[in-house]
């Protein structure tokens, strides 16, 4: 399906360039409609603003450690737009844009980082989303299992799972691609190659020229896309999803992207990367080029963009306040969800704890 974009031949799919211009020579690629492009842009603005607000709140001491998404937004926005709303979406942890495409409340994103379990409550049959996975790459086998279950039931639903470049070194990556290849599972492995795993650069992570080419060793195709190009991300995912739905198995997509911010707010990226490198990537910012595109296509005006940004900020502020005022988890709930019903030995522990806390719930 991606014969013309074989990563082993040094090819990378780009459709929307840094100047916001579409490459119209690519006849075989599905493009975002005007409506979709505008939606992608609006969500990207909200993602950017909400993300910057979280970082700012961290500096104010109101938000604990937070991993910024800035610079990588096109990856999850383009790919989640390309699949159906009831396909399984298995997160790593830098997919805020994709969550917003699925209409997850922004307050829930903040709630997780504020330290409330309800931040991982994505009602299963409403969202088809798995929560953030903390042990790197350990979410990959879950997605393969979800895909297997859909294949078993013959639903034509698929799974997409996100991972970073660092995660490709973990055994789960190998095992999951291997299982998915053998099972011909309807799944898309999406690697957000943001060039660094905290401080460790991509070339220290693997001697492979690209991450995408690893797919061929598992018996399926891989493609490297410009991860800052929402059109390329969308197109590759759309094709891979159709491939999976037809029963043709998995695809590996490597989104070649860059984390403009720190790994988390506890990280200092100036220790391991040059300012020039960052400056170069700022020119390739996914938001800037999509903004150029929607303006050139007259899908939105400068004035409307200004309003959009103001609204996004209001939305982020309100969402954080909502999360910050969300009811703290109770003692009862701390015990309640360990098992479906509380075993007697745990009921006793709960009672003891209640007494120690002077009768709290």
């Amino acid at each position: 399906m991606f014969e013309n974009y074989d990563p082993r031949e040094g090819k990378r799919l780009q459709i929307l360039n840094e100047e916001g211009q579409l490459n119209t020579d690519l006849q075989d690629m599905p493009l975002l409609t005007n409506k979709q492009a505008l939606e992608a842009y609006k969500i990207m603005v909200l993602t950017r603003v909400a993300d910057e607000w979280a970082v700012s709140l961290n500096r104010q001491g109101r938000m604990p450690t937070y991993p910024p998404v800035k610079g990588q937004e096109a990856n999850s926005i383009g790919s989640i737009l390309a699949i159906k709303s009831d396909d399984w979406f298995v997160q790593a942890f830098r997919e805020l844009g994709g969550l917003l495409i699925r209409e997850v409340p922004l307050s829930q994103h903040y709630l997780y980082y504020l330290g409330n379990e309800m931040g991982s409550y994505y009602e299963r049959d409403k969202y088809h989303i798995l929560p953030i996975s903390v042990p790197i790459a350990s979410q990959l086998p879950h997605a393969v299992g979800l895909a297997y279950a859909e294949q078993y039931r013959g639903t034509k639903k698929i799974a997409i799972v996100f991972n970073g470049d660092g995660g490709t070194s973990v055994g789960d990556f190998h095992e999951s691609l291997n299982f998915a290849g053998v099972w011909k599972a309807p799944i898309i492995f999406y690697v957000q190659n943001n060039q660094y795993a905290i401080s460790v650069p991509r070339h220290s992570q693997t001697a492979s020229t690209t991450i995408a080419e690893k797919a061929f060793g598992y018996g399926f195709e891989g493609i490297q896309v410009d991860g800052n190009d929402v059109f390329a991300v969308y197109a590759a995912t759309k094709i891979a999803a159709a491939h999976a739905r037809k029963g043709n198995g998995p695809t590996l997509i490597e989104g070649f992207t860059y984390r403009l911010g720190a790994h988390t707010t506890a990280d200092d990226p100036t220790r391991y990367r040059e300012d020039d490198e960052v400056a170069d990537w700022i020119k390739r910012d996914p938001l800037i080029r999509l903004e150029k595109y929607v303006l050139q296509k007259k899908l939105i005006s400068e004035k409307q963009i200004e309003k959009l940004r103001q609204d996004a900020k209001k939305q982020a502020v309100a969402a954080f306040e909502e999360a910050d005022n969300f009811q703290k988890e109770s003692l009862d709930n701390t015990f309640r969800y360990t098992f479906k019903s509380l075993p007697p030995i745990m009921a006793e522990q709960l009672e003891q704890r209640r007494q120690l806390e002077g009768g709290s719930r």
Partner: protein
Amino acid sequence: MQALTIIAAVNDALMTEMQIDPEVVTFGEDVGVEGGVFRATVNLQKKFGKKRCFDTPLAENAIVGTALGMAIAGLRPVVEIQFSGFAYPAFNQIIGHVSRMRNRTRGTLTAPMVIRMPYSGGIRALEMHSESMEALFAHIPGIKVVIPSTPYETKGLLISAIRDDDPVIFMEPKRLYRAFKQEVPEEAYTIPIGKARIVQEGTQITLVSYGSQMKEAREAAQLLQQEGISVELIDLRTIYPYDKATIVDSVKKTGRLLAVHEGPRSFGVAAEIISTITKDAFEYLEAPPTRLTGADTIFPLPGAEHHYMIQTSHIVNTIREILQYQP
């Protein structure tokens, strides 16, 4: 009724439950075509097809991790880890996800899945094939650990485990896989998880054991009975959540306790039981609660296995000593 061994009862439980519930699937290494290295899954692929009973690539972590994905989607996977000694690569999945999924998603994603594995020594097996590490699993919040000791209980407990809405690690005493047969109903039945069984009532000492060690425990109780010593024998059956009430009630009656298991001593299941008894039946105790367990050694290779295993005579002698205790 049919006379089955433990291994045949495992197979019968799977056969019975897969017949009833199309969401039950079973997989693992050599589980499909071969029917498992111990034949626990024999004929399941023939009967239910390759979508429901199949071989996986050789990777325990992914076997457990993919099972969790299936469970989240609503299937009821029963996976086989070929030997409990090979479960360790799957710990990241078991501890990091399987045990936590219900809690961290406040109940919207759950893990109704069973991880089966043969455990225990005494079969002259290769390195890493003989350990009894149930305490490792029992220490993980959010995981149930079940160990049967008879064919009848194997079927009933395994069906309960499959129907349970939480993850269950089902450890099978491989030394007893083919040790004896017992009448087992052909239809489905369940035995509650979390309930111990009083195998033999007695008045002078409570003997608690489970799994593979139940054979020696039962023999010891019978030998002592011939000497006129009355042993109350309890088969724990569920390691977590263990049946505290049954043990405490028994010790209140007998005043003495011996807990026996094959696994290493320190921080083991017996330690938990004794701690419980010491607190909850303290004023009833007539002798120090005692444990007879494997040592904190690496499980020896077959040539020295006899230096590790607990014999019937060891239990008999220990109980005699406890009964002779004078404060």
